[in-house]
């Protein structure tokens, strides 16, 4: 199967996503420049991490106006699996494809370190191979990952099971000390109502090989491959 990795000016984890999808899990991947609209027949889309447009003004704010985002939106509307890692999450929020917004980390500092993330739901194409409650050790690397949404939105996300990942201890407890940035309800990742668009601040694509300190994140990419093989709604991106 084929991944489309969207490259915005200032994206910098595009290579990481490419390496993880191709060299590590043996699939195909295409880099799609943000001015293009042709997704080249991709089966799944990754919005990678980085600093699109420098993250100037607000993280993800300018990227949502890129031509490629219309294709991403159409692909998602047709049920195709889309994932955002870190900056990709911020872009999906700004684009309104996911609900909420990011504030500065409560420490006011950029943080890069391994954290523990509990997988809440496996009923998305990106978490299908996870056990609910499974704890992954994967890195974060961001300055604005403090997830916020209005109380009624949070309630709805919780009620619908749209909270997919939460910061937790190694034992899976969602304590405040395990929350690296102040996110409400320890939220590390969410999905849309249809559940095909998933995003998280941590970087599973950086945790796909033991040599890099953890291979826990690989299950996210493996899941979407399995889900597409199982024939859950397949959309050919164009």
């Amino acid at each position, binding site marked *: 199967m084929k991944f489309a990795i969207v490259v915005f000016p200032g994206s910098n984890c595009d290579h990481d996503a490419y390496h993880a999808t191709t060299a590590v899990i043996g699939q195909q991947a295409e880099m799609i420049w943000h001015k293009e609209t042709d997704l080249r027949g991709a089966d799944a889309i990754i919005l990678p991490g980085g600093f699109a447009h420098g993250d100037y003004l607000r993280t993800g704010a300018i990227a949502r106006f890129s031509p490629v985002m219309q294709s991403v939106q159409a692909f998602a509307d047709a049920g195709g699996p889309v994932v955002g890692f870190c900056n990709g999450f911020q872009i999906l929020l700004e684009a309104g494809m996911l609900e909420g917004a990011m504030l500065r980390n409560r420490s006011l*500092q950029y*943080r890069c370190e391994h954290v523990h993330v509990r997988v809440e739901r496996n009923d998305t194409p990106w978490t299908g191979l996870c056990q609910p409650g499974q704890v992954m050790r994967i890195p974060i690397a961001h300055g604005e990952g403090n997830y916020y949404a209005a109380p009624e939105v949070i309630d709805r996300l919780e009620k619908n099971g749209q909270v997919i990942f939460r910061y937790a201890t190694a034992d899976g407890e969602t304590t405040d000390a395990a929350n690296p940035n102040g996110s409400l309800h320890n939220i590390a990742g969410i999905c849309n109502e249809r559940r095909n668009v998933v995003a998280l601040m941590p970087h599973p694509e*950086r945790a796909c090989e033991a040599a890099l*300190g953890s291979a826990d994140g690989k299950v996210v990419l493996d899941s979407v491959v399995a889900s597409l093989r199982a024939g859950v709604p397949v959309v050919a991106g164009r």
Partner: protein
Amino acid sequence: MAFDAATLDRHGLKPDEYDRIRVLLGREPNLTELGMFSVMWSEHCSYKSSRVHLKTLPTTGPRVVQGPGENAGAVDIGDGLAAVFKIESHNHPSFIEPYQGAATGVGGIIRDIFTMGARPIALLNALRFGPIDNPQTKRIVAGIVSGIGGYGNAIGIPTIGGEVFFDESYALNPLVNALCLGIARIDDIIKGRAEGVGNPVYYVGAKTGRDGIHGATMASAEFDEASAEKRPAVQVGDPFMEKLLLEACLEVMKSDALVGIQDMGAAGLTCSTCEMAARAGTGIDFDVTLVPRRETGMTPYETLLSESQERMLLVVKLGREAEVERVFERYDLHAVKIGTVTGDGLVRVRDAGVVVAEIPGPALTDEAPLYHRPMKRPADLDTLRTVDAAALKPRPSLRDAALALLGSPTIASKRWIYRQYDSMVRTNTLVPAGYGTPVVRVKESGKALAISTDANGRFVLLDPKQGAMMAVAEAARNVACAGAIPIGVTNNLNFGNPERPEIMWQLGQAVEGIGEACRAFDIPVTGGNVSLYNETDGRAILPTPVIGVVGLLDDASAVVDRRFRGEGRTVILMGEQRGELGGGEYLKTVHGQVRGVPPRVDLTRELAVQQLFPALVAERLIESAHDVSDGGLAVALAECCFDTNGIGLSVDLAAAIGDPWAGAPADAVTDEQTLFGESAPLIVVSTAAAQADVVVARAVAAGIPARVIGRTGGSQIRITIDGRDALALTVAEAETTWGTAIEARMTSRRAGAA
């Protein structure tokens, strides 16, 4: 037009230098030309005080692809690839505006690397600050660290390591030395040469503003009260622009339409045009009105001297312009033709067609003044080299001393710093910051590169030659401990005012020491940087020659770091504890003294270590390795237990073999010497019990004393000396002290924020 003394002074030019300009030109310069000479002949650009010394460094070797003289050095790492690396200082700007000063320093060194056609894959930073409890220092630390992160994180190059050292002498003159490492295909390496008469000269990147005018001359003038006045507009970094330039330039370099390229750093357009022309023996004729400018009314003088960031100068093959322009357009960058390569060897500057400056390129570069400055051994050095016995009392308990050392900011964990850096982007980081010598893999070849920066300014103060040799030895040893063979050296010489003979002596001695060590180890120096006039109101910083060593691992899957891997492993100590405390962290932290004779360098044994360790690691005979440095053997042993989920150790040490140090009871080698002595090389190794004998035998055969000293396990760091109890700490208390010392000080309420 002749210039008065005040004008010359403002340009940092001495009267005899002015005379030299007139001779070189055969006439009086105009003001624009004077400005160009002033920046190019500044210490920063011309190396006029240090060049005679730098020439003595070994720069050749079978692996050298590019030695000093280009934008960065390069060494062959096999498979048609080269490691391209260089270190650069941004000390003065980082004091004036810590965030932007440090950020633009990082931006500058990254440009030097990709200018060579290399993809940057790692950053390191060597930092020096005043005492961390001082509120002003805290602001400087916070600003510099977030500036380094702000730039590196955004551009997407991992910051994988570095070093931090605290000393009073850096309080008003912090050091920020940034090192960048990149990978290039050897055949694709590009030089900063303006070849080919008639080829067009292009400008691309950020517009030119009035920022940083006279930055290069400022970087070469001592700080004083008056510098607050002449404070130039601060340069602001734009990592987004640089990311676009990086990607676009690497793409342009794939075609052969590009002839030469250079970034505009210090001395901006002046430096890039004259250096590119002089290297190729050509000239460049260009018009400042074609240069994209941010502000209106900029004069040629300002345009030529501006140090606006994120700008590149390119020479393109005639007829291939459209191809190059198209690549830049894709990134919304507009490459603009500003001039042409000429055959007359002149840098000719026009303002709307009218010639406003005309200088032979070499007059600005090769013909810059060269000084054999007088050198003199400081009169007080002999006093400094003795330890004041009276001041060594009272001696705290070994336990209190050990905890004081673990909590000393120079030794303590730098986690508060490096967790603000993205250390993992590009997914090559095998050993990240904090676990010892950082290592990145080279995906293209399955190999890996280890890299370390080191310099102990106290050692250099007390013995500049030995101290500099030790810096080379330590950096090379660090790299070897990870399993890598040292293959290249870069260096950043940070010293005080070279017009003072004592400072010049330090510099001369240090360069001698670097040369001697590099020759002994057969590692070429491929580049570096010199930062002088690091003084505030006549007080110099500790002489600080920062040494960066790059090492090559043939197998990226066999790498070790400092951490114990499990319980029940055998702990081996290699080397000899001679109990040298002079200039060390024990005397400084516990007794407030910077005194004594620093540890002696044993070049033969260091070389043996550099040869042995890569083999031990490649053969998977050892599980961890950590060399003794600041704080001595006890600190190194403790550090092997940190970040392991609390694996302890129990070891028995032989008492140090050295002479009793001054001030100690005359009848004994003291336990302080055994525990806190910083003799080198001294390396703590852990291995599976079954392999211990082989490892010891291999070391001994290589001429390195080695013996089993104990085992890993338990929750304590238990050290006995010749069977006597000496030190027992729980790993938890030691690790908490070490782990929180910097964070606690930086987050104490007075730190300031926003």
